[in-house]
């Protein structure tokens, strides 16, 4: 019996520079937080194995450089995304205002087959800063925006303290999985390459 390939789920994290995209990813995958800010150059990714309903999946989480906004990162980066995470900083109004642009950018670049129902998750990060006193975006406002965009799941996190990060990524994984499985229907199934049947090559007319 050939062993089953493990499903791969691709998650893209978008948001303004400095909102904590890399920190969220590191907190979720490595359970680590660094106070030192280092700008992500271009893009990078981390992988994590997740169990869900007795199955094992590989989450491939892509982190982007926020400053490359509106500059195309290229389709390679977006291709095959199963879930898009939009991150803003609850202490910076502009990062919230830009969520719409990030969402549009994603839909243009990734051009998912069903843009209306493509799974997004919104994260308001840095709730720990100054004990919440410097907060400028209210939860109500954020939830209203999420509701207006087709009920996007919303989480408030602190990547620094690890608050709510695991919970957010569980929903991210779950929604990515749902999307991935819908996509899967259109893909041909695996074949048993161990069989010794001689196949004719395509395209060759010797």
């Amino acid at each position, binding site marked *: 019996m050939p062993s089953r390939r493990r499903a791969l789920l691709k998650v893209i994290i978008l948001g303004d520079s400095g909102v904590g995209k890399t920190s969220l990813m590191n907190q979720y995958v490595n359970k680590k937080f660094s106070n030192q800010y280092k700008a992500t150059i271009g893009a990078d990714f981390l992988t994590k194995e997740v169990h869900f309903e007795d199955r094992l999946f590989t989450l491939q989480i892509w982190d982007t450089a926020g400053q490359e906004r509106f500059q195309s990162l290229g389709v390679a980066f977006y291709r095959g995304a199963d879930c898009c995470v939009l991150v803003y900083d609850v202490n910076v109004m502009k990062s919230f205002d830009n969520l719409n642009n990030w969402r549009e950018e994603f839909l243009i670049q990734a051009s998912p087959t069903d843009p209306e129902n493509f799974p997004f998750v919104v994260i308001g990060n840095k709730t720990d800063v100054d004990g919440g006193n410097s907060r400028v975006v209210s939860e109500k406002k954020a939830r209203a925006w999420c509701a207006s965009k087709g009920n996007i799941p919303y989480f408030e996190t602190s990547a620094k303290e690890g608050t709510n990060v695991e919970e957010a990524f569980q929903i991210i994984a779950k929604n990515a999985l749902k999307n991935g499985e819908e996509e899967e229907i259109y893909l041909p199934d695996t074949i048993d390459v161990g069989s010794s049947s001689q*196949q004719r*090559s395509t395209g060759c007319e010797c």
Partner: protein
Amino acid sequence: MKGSFSVPGDYIYFKSQVPLHKIPIGSKQWRYYDFGPKHVPPLICLPGIAGTADVYYKQIMSLSNKGYRVISVDIPRVWNHHEWIQAFEKFLDAIDVHHIHLYGTSLGGFLAQLFAQHRPRRVRSLVLSNTFLETSNFSAAMPWAPIVGWTPAFLLKRYVLTGIRDGPHEPFIADSLDFVVAQVETLSKDDLASRLSLTVDSASVGPLRLSDSLITIMDTNDFCAIPQQLKDQVTERYPGARQANLKNGGDFPFLSRPDEVNLHLQLHLRRVGVEAQPDLVQGFRQDGAGGSSSDQNDEREDERRDYTGTRNENEPPLALESPCVGNFENQILSNVDLSSDQ
């Protein structure tokens, strides 16, 4: 007749710009491309059984344009893995390259691991794609291996293409198959027989001295000719390796998903500390890549090998532009009919 296939326009452009080198080294004939700034430690691409140096033309075009040096080779006519290691070492000596990064797909990945095992000082990092650790599966599937040298070429060709999935494919994968089939057509009977021998020659990859953190595994997740359990063995052998799997792309993602593969190769090279020299990008001229230029050396003691973390500490800039970068890729992939294959 052969060769009435349609050739991608970007391949024709590649052929017009990047010189093909053919040199005898020892008793072996080497056929390879070598492009990009000479003093950057090269990424050397090792193709699978149905590949040639040409199958990586999209990597050569894109990465050399970003300031990396890329070499891709035909697997020379060697008949067992000892001969492979010796021949490849002589090749590296001849082109005056010391430290290398290997990107091996299928059989090429197996040969890359063997070389890393037996010549640990030369191999700085590995990118392994749809590959395996040992040959027993293949020898079991090929009981006629002892007479491979007497088998007619058409049968060898057919066998080499066995396992490549037939049937309807999405256009990019279909094109990648056409390209590879056309490449297999250019191979001689002895080329094919030697590759098949390498695939069944009893050998397995032993422990590598290379740290897992310097290995990236880039399997395609949809289908490929290498059985899943063999690919899984590779993943289990290097638990600390970076998993850069692609959702799909079939057997030849370097042709069918070049932008994703190139992105992963770039990320890998950045992670292992290879610094691109974008300001030294060669004009794509005929004199661009002297195969064995003598002034290059990789003697610099780049002690990046102690790198352990999963994040890069000193990232050289990796500009992630649109995949349509540079003069090559802006070209529309128009198909051009060629009446002859060379």
